[in-house]
């Protein structure tokens, strides 16, 4: 099962993307409270997206994005191309998914 949902729709040369990442986004404080060790914090630290091998979105992120973060963004692109999104978290886990732009 993929950890993300991607919706990408083009209108007038601009692709509007709505995406949801399944991730607990555990903060240092939450980790300390639940496990006694701040180092158990785990959250997405980087999200990037490419179309035809070119980076169209690139975000460095922290523990203060909500749990299961929902992010909307836009980029210049066209219908029919494929958007590939990848995230990586603090523990080094990663997932990637591709969606055709509608």
């Amino acid at each position, binding site marked *: 099962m993929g950890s993300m949902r991607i919706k990408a729709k083009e209108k007038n040369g601009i692709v509007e993307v709505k995406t949801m990442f399944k991730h607990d986004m555990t903060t240092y404080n939450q980790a300390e409270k639940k496990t006694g060790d701040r180092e158990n914090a785990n959250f997405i630290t980087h999200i990037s997206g490419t179309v035809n091998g070119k980076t169209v979105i690139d975000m460095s992120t922290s*523990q203060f994005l909500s749990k299961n973060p929902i992010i909307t963004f836009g980029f210049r692109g066209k219908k029919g191309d494929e958007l590939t999104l990848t995230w990586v978290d603090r523990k080094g886990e990663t997932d990637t998914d591709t969606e055709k732009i509608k």
Partner: protein
Amino acid sequence: MDRRNFLSITLGSLALAAIPASVKAEDFRKSKPAVWTAHTIEDAIANMYGSKKLEMTDEIKLSVANVSSTDTKKKATAANGGAVPVDFKTDANVKNIAVLQDANPESAVMVIDCNEFSVNDYGIKIKMGKPGKVVIVAETTDGRLIGVQQDVDVALGGCEG
């Protein structure tokens, strides 16, 4: 480069072949580590942008909990501090955009590295452990530092939730 390694592992050899030259993105957690441990908005900005003067402007539009920062009659109130909607956009030519707040132990939420494809219109949801302010800062391609801020009341803390 770390970034290239990371992509080659995750996307495999197919992506690796497509990546050289086209990826110019910056991982700000690696290039500016002090931004992410800064406890105040001021420190985060200083670590990200140095001593550059921040100019508060309406070039960036910010809306928190669906209340626009330009609407001075209404104060933003977030019902759930675990997921406060933050929407921001700008038509200015910017190199990067940082989302900061002072309602959590550390200030930085995200830094976006902009590129020629960017349409700078974003919507995210953030945690706010207590009432505070959200600040969006962007560095323009001509070297200015522009920002916008909004105070937010939080009905229920997000960090414990």
